[in-house]
């Protein structure tokens, strides 16, 4: 078995994944790619009642842990909700999308990737006062061109594909979380033999972590790692003061979660990941504790409790038409996950890890 690497084929796969349309609740396009990629490497791959892809690849050693790896397939986007006629559609957002990111963007509608645009009133027709406020979602439309019958309410849409490379960076829509999906595919292909790898490519993460809990219930793992992409807000502060709200930073390696608005990540696993990275000389960072949620929140509280932690690739401008990450951060995240899998042992889950300093107090 060889270590997984990221080279040209993996980047090509990421491009295909990013350019696919898989808005929460309609993940079919990414699901098809995933099934195609993993089928030859797993004992079984099935699609469950919500559309999660669940796959098992058993190891061969003794005392193997059942390790769940989860990556959500869905992305934020839109659903057409009303046809105004003449190729114009009112739409709603699916997942957390900042409406200020929408005017002037190209979109793809439906399974056939019909091109469309979201326009805005010409500046000449706006007032100064109007320009001080954000353009409300209710006044925006997706325009497919003045022709009736091209699409119908209920169809999904998302930002048009935008994958490209720029120096050390990758730019695309939906890097959140096709980076995670691509990593999970690689980890399946190169799973170390000391664990039973239980892979979950989950659905509906962006609308409330709905796929992950169901997947955990089905897979019954001993512990879980969640692979995702998290915002890097490492830009200057408006007043040039020190930015202490960056969430994560590019070029600082994989971001290990400690706490978010949904959970405290399992501190045994947090420590294990950090120690693994240090030992293998893989750069890493802690994601700033704070708001946000990942699939780990749903997995942790599934069944009688599952120790879980999230590891994310830092990415700028997530949930917009074009996000940006560093190839090197992605590679290091995959390395960290693979190294961690190789070294994970049942002893890790010993719960009586009492800090000696505190007992003395």
């Amino acid at each position: 078995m060889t270590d997984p690497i990221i080279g040209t084929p993996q980047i090509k796969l990421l491009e295909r994944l990013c350019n696919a349309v898989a808005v929460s609740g309609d993940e079919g396009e990414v699901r098809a790619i995933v099934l195609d990629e993993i089928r030859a490497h797993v004992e079984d791959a099935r699609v469950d009642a919500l559309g999660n892809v669940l796959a098992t690849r058993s190891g061969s050693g003794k005392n193997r842990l059942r390790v769940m790896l989860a990556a959500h397939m869905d992305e934020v986007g839109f659903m057409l909700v009303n046809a105004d006629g003449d190729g114009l559609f009112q739409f709603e957002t699916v997942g957390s999308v900042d409406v200020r990111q929408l005017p002037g963007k190209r979109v793809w509608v439906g399974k056939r990737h019909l091109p469309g645009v979201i326009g805005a009133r010409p500046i000449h027709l706006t007032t100064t006062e109007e320009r001080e406020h954000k353009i409300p979602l209710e006044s925006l439309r997706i325009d497919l061109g003045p022709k009736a019958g091209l699409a119908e309410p209920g169809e999904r849409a998302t930002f048009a594909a935008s994958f490209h490379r720029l120096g050390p960076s990758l730019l695309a829509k939906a890097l959140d979380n096709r980076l995670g999906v691509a990593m999970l595919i690689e980890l399946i292909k190169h799973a170390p033999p000391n664990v039973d790898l239980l892979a979950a490519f989950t659905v509906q993460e962006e609308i409330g972590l709905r796929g992950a809990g169901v997947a955990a219930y089905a897979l019954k793992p001993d512990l879980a790692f969640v692979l995702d992409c998290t915002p890097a807000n490492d830009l200057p502060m408006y007043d040039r003061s020190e930015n202490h709200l960056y969430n994560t930073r590019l070029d600082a390696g994989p971001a290990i979660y400690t706490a978010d608005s949904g959970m405290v990540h399992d501190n045994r696993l947090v420590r294990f990941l950090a120690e693994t990275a240090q030992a293998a000389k893989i750069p890493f960072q802690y994601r700033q504790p704070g708001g946000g949620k990942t699939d780990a929140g749903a997995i942790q509280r599934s069944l009688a409790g599952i120790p879980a932690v999230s590891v994310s690739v830092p990415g700028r401008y997530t949930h917009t038409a074009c996000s940006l990450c560093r190839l090197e951060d992605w590679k290091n995240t995959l390395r960290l996950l693979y190294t961690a899998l190789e070294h994970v042992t049942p002893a890790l889950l010993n719960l009586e890890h009492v800090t000696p300093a505190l007992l003395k107090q």
Partner: protein
Amino acid sequence: MKALIQTLTETFGPSGHEDAVRAVIRAQVEPLADEIRVDALGSLIAVKRPVRDGGKKILLAAHMDEIGLIISHVDEKGFLRFTTLGGVPPRTLVGGRVRFLDGTPGVIGGEVLENWDKVHTMEQLFIDIGASGPKDVRVKIGDVAALERPFLDLGKRLVAKSLDDRIGVAVLIETLRQLKMTPHEVYFVFTSREELSSEAGAAAVAFGIEPDLALSVDVTSTGDTPKGHKTDVALGKGPAIRIHDPGVLSDPRIVAWIDQTARKNKIPFQRQVSTFGTTDARAMQASRSGVPVSCLAIPCRYVHTPSEMVDMDDVQNAVKLLVCLLSAPVEI
């Protein structure tokens, strides 16, 4: 019991980091229980077995975690920015002291506000551990601190940090101690992670134990302070049945059971519908095929500040009531 409450409230245990307080509780319950275990998310489970078959499987949950702070950034001068674990009102923090898992102490300072009529937001606060620069700082992102404030014995009333919910923990330990015989299989559970909105600890516990009914034993805010909350619940008038809150509608059969048991045994109690907050009962009620739940609450002033206050009469009456509830058969 006061000594136990003091030890419990002065022990460290923010959500997800309950190792130290779990060790303290474990030492207390180990000699009293028929079985002890720790579940996958760190909750401590002490089982008291029935004298004969035929009783119910009853889960009592008191959360052992407390609200806390977690470091989000070490700045270029060595000050620590933080966010919270659980609901910590920023107005309670300025000038307060904290202690980290490794024992490091610190004080909380705030940026100078342009308008002193406003209170600090969390983002305007920081912890100062006396470092001259970032090189002196061993604390890192993700490290956790708890509020530090000494226990205060006012006679009938006690003041401490984390009485929410170490007082519930103390009530469960004392109930286990006093419960001589029970027809039920009783699970005394000290849950982890309650202060986070997901109550993952209780959810896992309820799934794992599959109880016939469950009670959370927690604190509830009173209305007996100047211009206080709109509730008649007061210190010293007995434990409160938290009938409704925004997350839990108690099972009416459980409420009737507690109400009638208290009346029959002449134990003072109060009834409450709370318009804010919730408890572990929320995560337990919809577990598996459903669990009838309610919450028995110790009235508490100044909840989620470093100086929470309870009345020992309420604490002892809560123990008495629980012992009565668990000593007799129940039909639900």
